Structure formats: C-alpha cells, structure tokens
C-alpha cells in the first residue's frame, strides 16, 4: 500500500489516462481534482491489487495551516507550515500541526465527519500569540495558542487534549451551537472537554481504564501543584496550589456554582456533564470513543438538542441518541441513565399536560 500526497500535475495526468486498466484511478484523480478546486482536501491512496492492477482510493484528509503570530496579538500571523510540509522544528508549530491531524482523525475515522463542518473545512491554527499569553482559544475560525507566562503556564500546544478541545468548539459551532452562557455554555465547554479527551485517547489508543481523563496535562510549569487543568473522572481534583487555589469544578449538580463571571461559570459547571460522560464511558468499558463517544456525537449532531438546552434537556437527548443507535433496552441506554443519575441530573421528559387545579 502506497500512501502519498499526489501533486496536482500528477493528478491531472492520471485523470487523463484512458486505458481501461486505470479507469478507477483516473476517476479518483478527477474527483480529487474537483475537491481541490473546491478547496477541499482528500487523501489519494494508490496501491496494487493481486493482479497488479492500480487501485486508487479517496480518503478524507485534513488541510492544515499553522501560522506564527510572532508574540503579537495580530491574527492570523505568518504561515509557517502547510499541509504536507515537513516538521519545522518549532515545538508549538509542530504540536499544533500534529494535534490538528489527530483531531481530524478522531472525527473522520470514528464518526465519519470530514473536518469541523463535516464538509472538509480547512483547519487553521495560530501559535506564539501574544506576549507570555496565558490562554488558548477558538475565535470562530481558528484555534489560537499562547506560549504561557513560563511561571504558571507553559505553552498550551503541549497538551493534545487542549487542541482537541479548541477544535471541538468549532464542531459544536457547526452542529449543536450551544449558547455560551449558563448551563448551555457549560455543556458547550463539556462537549469540548469530552472530545478533547477522546482525541488524546484515540491518538494513544488508550482504553477507558488506561486514560488519564485529564484536560491540559503538561501545560502547568513544574512550580504548580497540579497535574492538569481539569479532570473528567474526578472534577475538582486536577490541581491544588498555593497561588492558583484548588480546582473549583463541581462533580455533582448539588454543587452547581452560581456566578456572574465566565459566562455564568461555563468552565466550572462543565465538571458536572464531564463526570456524567466519564461514568457512561466507565460503565461501558473498552474505548471511550466507541460507544460513549458515539452517543455524545450523535447527541450534538442530532435533531433534538436545542442551542439553549440545559443539563436536563441534554441528558434527555443523550438517552434518545443511545436508544436510537443501540435500542431502548440496551446496555448503552442503561449506562447513560445511570451516568446522569450519578451527577444528580434527571433527564427532561416530554412535556406533560398541565396539572388541573
């Protein structure tokens, strides 16, 4: 099996072959060229079968561009690595490039989604944003990474789960579009943490039991008492530090945090649905991206979830997704129901007639 990026001139040459023996390859090349015209990327795989006939296959492929902001706050910065380019030797650039690829791989290989929008959208990243900038964010079109201050945070690309988290904000933007405030905002955050963790687990081939379930492992400096920013398995335990304080995430709805900051605590209350996902994955075992991840993916891309869904409505949508895919009496439905019960969320039921009297 030969894998490779076929340059356009070669694709054009293959597309013009009129030998019947190469008909499939010629057709594939024409499709690939059409994709190129639409600025969509595909992988064009060539191989020989047992009769030594040329076999061409088209596979969805990422179209990555990493730019360098050069410690300024202007976007997008200068392009430093494009799709197919060799590593450049700058850790942030190469980690971003590889992380974009690993995120693309999870969505494409496991859920059949071609990039963020499901239609091959190019994946863009900017690194070295700002001066000692302590953050990573999604601006609606690209993920942007700072280098950290060097005292508390080091560079944010060092954690694959952070990259998966940012790009998953893009997936949510093109699917469930959860409003970034209060409970729907915490769900938006949680979806990014869930798929950020799954990108990392899928890339490392880690089962539910092997995985750390941490978000942002490796982005604290050695000065900080903490392993990561968040834990899906045990929200509230990721760090406990003199300067930063203790990880404030709740793990149960009883401890829901009411605040005006951070859009109503979207990065805090995400601990509750995060833990629910972990409980579902733990109950089902194996690889979390397979069934638990599939149910969550079906939920955010499905017809039921609304942009202003609260925890209870989201829980109901996951139950519906699990029932549709695995059957209403399946182990998956039981696991989902138990997962939400474990964090104190009762799934919303269909509207009932108003009480009389």
């Amino acid at each position, binding site marked *: 099996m030969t894998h490779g990026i076929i340059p356009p001139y070669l694709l054009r040459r293959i597309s013009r072959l009129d030998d019947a023996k190469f008909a499939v390859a010629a057709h594939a090349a024409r499709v690939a060229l059409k994709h190129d015209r639409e600025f969509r990327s595909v992988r064009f795989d060539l191989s020989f079968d047992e009769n030594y006939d040329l076999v061409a296959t088209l596979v969805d492929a990422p179209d990555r561009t990493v730019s360098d902001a050069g410690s300024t706050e202007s976007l997008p910065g200068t392009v430093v690595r494009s799709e197919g380019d060799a590593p450049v030797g700058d850790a942030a650039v190469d980690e971003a490039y590889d992380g974009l690829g690993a995120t693309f791989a999870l969505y494409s290989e496991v859920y059949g989604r071609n990039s963020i929008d499901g239609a091959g959208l190019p994946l863009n990243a900017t690194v070295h944003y700002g001066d000692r900038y*302590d*953050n*990573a*964010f*999604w*601006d*609606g079109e690209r993920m942007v990474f700072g280098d950290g201050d060097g005292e508390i*945070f080091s560079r*944010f690309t060092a954690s694959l789960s*952070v990259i998966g*988290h*940012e790009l998953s*904000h893009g997936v949510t*933007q093109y699917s469930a579009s959860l409003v*970034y405030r209060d409970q729907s905002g915490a769900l*938006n955050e949680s979806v*990014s943490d869930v798929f950020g963790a799954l990108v990392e687990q899928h890339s490392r081939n880690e089962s539910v039991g092997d995985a750390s379930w941490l978000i*942002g492992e490796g982005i604290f400096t050695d000065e900080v008492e903490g392993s990561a*920013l968040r834990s899906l398995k045990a929200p509230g335990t990721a760090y406990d530090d003199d300067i*930063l*304080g*203790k990880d*404030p995430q709740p793990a149960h709805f009883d401890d829901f*945090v*009411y*605040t*005006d*900051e*951070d*859009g109503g*605590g*979207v*990065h*805090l209350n995400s601990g509750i649905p995060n833990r629910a996902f972990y409980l579902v994955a733990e109950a089902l075992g194996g690889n979390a991206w397979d069934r638990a991840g599939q149910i969550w993916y079906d939920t955010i891309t499905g017809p039921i979830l609304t942009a202003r869904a609260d925890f209870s409505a989201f829980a109901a949508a996951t139950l519906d997704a699990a029932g549709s895919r695995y059957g209403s009496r399946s182990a998956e439905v039981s696991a989902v129901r138990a997962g939400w019960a474990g964090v104190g969320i009762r799934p919303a039921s269909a509207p009932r007639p108003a009480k009389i009297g």
Partner: protein
Amino acid sequence: MGRSRDQASFSPQAREDRLINMPAVLTITVARSGGFAGITRRWSVSAALDEADELIELVDACPWPRVAKDEVSRDRFVYVITVRAPRKRRSATVPESALTGPWKTLVNRVQEEPAEPAAPPTPPPSR
C-alpha cells in the same frame, strides 16, 4: 458612633458630612475571568482623588456605554472593569476581543500594580 443609627443621621446634610469625612479615593479593579483555564485573576489600583488625574483620564477615555459583544469566540477572557469613587461607581464587562485602544491602556495600567494576594479560587456567588 453613638447616634449613627439615629434618624437624623440619614438627613442629606448628615450624608454630606460623612462623605466629606470619607477618604476620597478612586479605585479601579479588573477581574479577568474565563479563558481556557476558567481561573479568575484580579488586579486593582487606588489613588487619592486629588492625585488621580492620570487614572481619571484613562477612565474617561474609555467608551463606557458602547462595549462590543463577542458571541463567536470560545475560551477567551472576559474583563469586568469597575471604577469606584465617592458617590460614583461605573462598571463594564469587556470581552477580550473588544479590549483594544483605551480599554487596553486602562487594563494594562491596572495590571501594572502588584496582583492582589490570595485571590479566591471560586468566584463569589451571585445569589
């Protein structure tokens, strides 16, 4: 202090007296919440009103009633900027993407002050 709860002390004149006796201080606080980490950091600067011309100029330069919203970005910082002075309080919530020009100058000035020690790890409840 003996008659501080006396009805008379709520008269306009009494209030005026108290204000005059209050130290006339201008305080600007910046609370930066959100971000990927969701960790709130706070900075503040205070100055006696009669020595606060520089700060007042920075405050007045900001477009207080017109702050752009940002409905698209995720994991960006949100700045709550509050100015307190006797009988005056002004506050604005500024998304990071709108923190440009005079807002940026003001926040940079406040951040120059040493950070407040022991910021609470959990934001204060709003209810």
